[in-house]
């Protein structure tokens, strides 16, 4: 049952990439997708159906915040580079991620790298992310609040 749920999106990706919607191509794609699923054998996860709407709402909110951060980061880096005086005060700030799962830590590191002027350099076993900032004199309060909001959204998505 769970494998049947995975066949449909993989088949859609194959049909899009080959851009050929005839019946023979659908059969060939079905064979390839089932071969991939037999090779990988994904682990079965319990699906919480009653929590699905709140997870979808949290996912949409997360993607919107990520897109806004991406655009702001592009504009900010371009402004710093094109300034003749190069106003950078670089430094490394430690941010604790406080996520239980490894997937949550990895995804919050990915999101921090997309936010303006920050880039995760190193990460230790307790989940503390050492972040390189272009403007290290910014208040630490703002960074902690953004990380708390991000962690709440990720826990809602992957619960």
């Amino acid at each position, binding site marked *: 049952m769970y494998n049947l749920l995975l066949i449909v999106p993989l088949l859609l990706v194959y049909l899009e990439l080959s851009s050929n919607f005839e019946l023979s191509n659908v059969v060939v794609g079905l064979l390839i997708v089932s071969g991939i699923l037999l090779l990988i054998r994904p682990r079965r996860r319990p699906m919480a159906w009653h929590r699905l709407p709140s997870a979808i709402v949290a996912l949409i909110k997360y993607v919107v915040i990520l897109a806004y951060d991406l655009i702001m980061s592009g504009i900010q880096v371009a402004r710093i580079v094109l300034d003749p005086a190069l106003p950078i005060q670089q430094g490394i700030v430690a941010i604790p991620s406080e996520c239980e799962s490894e997937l949550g830590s990895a995804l919050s590191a990915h999101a921090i790298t*997309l936010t303006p002027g920050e880039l995760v350099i190193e990460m230790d076993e307790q989940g503390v992310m050492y972040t390189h900032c272009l403007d290290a004199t910014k208040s630490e309060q703002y960074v902690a609040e953004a990380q708390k909001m991000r962690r709440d959204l990720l826990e809602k998505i992957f619960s």
Partner: protein
Amino acid sequence: MNLFLQVIAILAVVVGTLFSVVGVVGFIRLPDVYTRLHATGKVGVFGVVFLLVAAAFGEPLGWGRGLFLILLLVITGPATAHAIGSAANRIGLPRKGAERDDLVYTSKSKS
């Protein structure tokens, strides 16, 4: 309708080229490896994403492949930047004029 799509494609190509120029200028001007990572990792990917938006609007069949490539770039771009920054930290490159430095370099692999 066709006019609208074409104006969007022209604007996307112009903005993407501007971001590519900014990325290479930052790669030359910035003083340090860690700050150059910001310029190339973010602004370089930004230029390709805007060109792909132009390809998704300008070609009749290109939207699916363009969206797939945008997703791939947005996922893999920060991972590449993190890998190169971690390598620069492991071999002990200095940070010029750092305001604060919470990460004390400890040599793990080499002694």
